[in-house]
């Protein structure tokens, strides 16, 4: 019996509380699962230093594990290697898009100078490429704010990190 796989199966039910369609595994923040004799330590990595969802995620992990009968579960934060949006899985990206959030590209800001936008993300609703950046800071630390110039809808984008 592969206990690690069993645990990962349980954790599939744990999602990001701010984007409840994507699991912590798909988001790439679930790191190691260490099984000791009498306890299980689950390592997760914060997306942003100040992400207020981390405490809730830790609570949700313990709850999901307890419901399946796992006792003595400890959740620890792991800083290194630092989480990056490249850690989001392809399935995760697809789910983000279907949820109305444009998935991240692979460029950090100001690597090509001030006032330069990275390639504009395509609109998650109508797929138009004709979009503009409204603000680099959105409704949560991990998102920026954009608008589609064709369907006119504003949308969030998971920003590169």
């Amino acid at each position: 019996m592969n206990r690690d796989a069993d645990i990962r199966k349980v954790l599939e039910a744990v999602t990001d509380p701010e984007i409840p369609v994507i699991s912590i595994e798909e988001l790439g923040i679930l790191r190691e699962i260490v099984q000791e004799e009498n306890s299980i330590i689950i390592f997760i990595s914060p997306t942003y230093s100040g992400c207020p969802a981390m405490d809730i995620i830790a609570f949700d992990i313990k709850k999901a594990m307890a419901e399946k009968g796992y006792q003595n579960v400890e959740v620890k934060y792991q800083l290194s290697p630092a989480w990056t949006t490249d850690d989001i899985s392809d399935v995760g990206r697809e789910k983000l898009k279907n949820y109305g959030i444009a998935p991240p590209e692979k460029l950090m800001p100001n690597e090509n100078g001030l006032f330069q936008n990275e390639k504009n993300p395509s609109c998650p609703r109508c797929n138009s490429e004709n979009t503009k950046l409204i603000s680099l800071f959105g409704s949560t630390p991990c998102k920026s704010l954009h608008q589609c110039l064709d369907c006119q809808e504003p949308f969030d984008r998971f920003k590169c990190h």
Partner: protein
Amino acid sequence: MKNWDSLNLFHHYVLEIADNTLILGQQLCEWCGHGPILEQDIALSNIALDLLGQSRLYYQYLSESTGGNFKEDDFLMYRDARKYRNSLLVEMPNGNWGTTITRQFLFDQFHILLLQKLSESSDQRLAEIAVKSIKEVKYHQRFSAEWVIRLGDGTQESHVIMQDSVDELYKYTCDFFVSTEADQYAASNGICAIPTEFEQLYYANVNGILQEATLKIPEIKKPIYSGKKGYHTEKLGYILAELQYMENMYPNCEW
């Protein structure tokens, strides 16, 4: 009573960094609900959250490295102004939007250089925190620099407001480069380069953007005291009064 004298130079060094991000983050929180437009209100709150999150990583580390003698919150709640080691710039009041942007810009440009050095630290934990923080601070840096240019090279009115802010705040940047005993300890132990090592680069970057913003670069008249040594302006007292209010009224409260 906590025995603050038991802290060593390493702890003092980490406090220099953590107190900067804490005090600036705390001040930015005051903008929440008062920003000129919604998007910028949200931007400052996001930056505040990043800075407070980074502060927590440092204070948690400090707590661990004192063997738990000091809790994370002790560092915030049970030190008076004299024991805070933030640089003077970050305790300057929010003022108007131009003042806040200028303060942010002058800090971000320093912050990124410091973190780049810290990411090569011999102290693994500090290096990890720095690598994590750099990703966030790059966004802050771009935000504040763009605003400085947009407003400095904007309308006549915005230009005057920005020049006033720069004239008022620029002098406090020299406090970043005061070498304390803790800085020297950090440098000689490979924890982080002494700040004067990147002082020239800092002013080259800052002045370059100020020039692009058509702003005049003021002469520096060095303040006589240094926040890094615990000598602050009266302004820090007001910030701490608010920050520590709840803990003072209801010690050890939890919710």
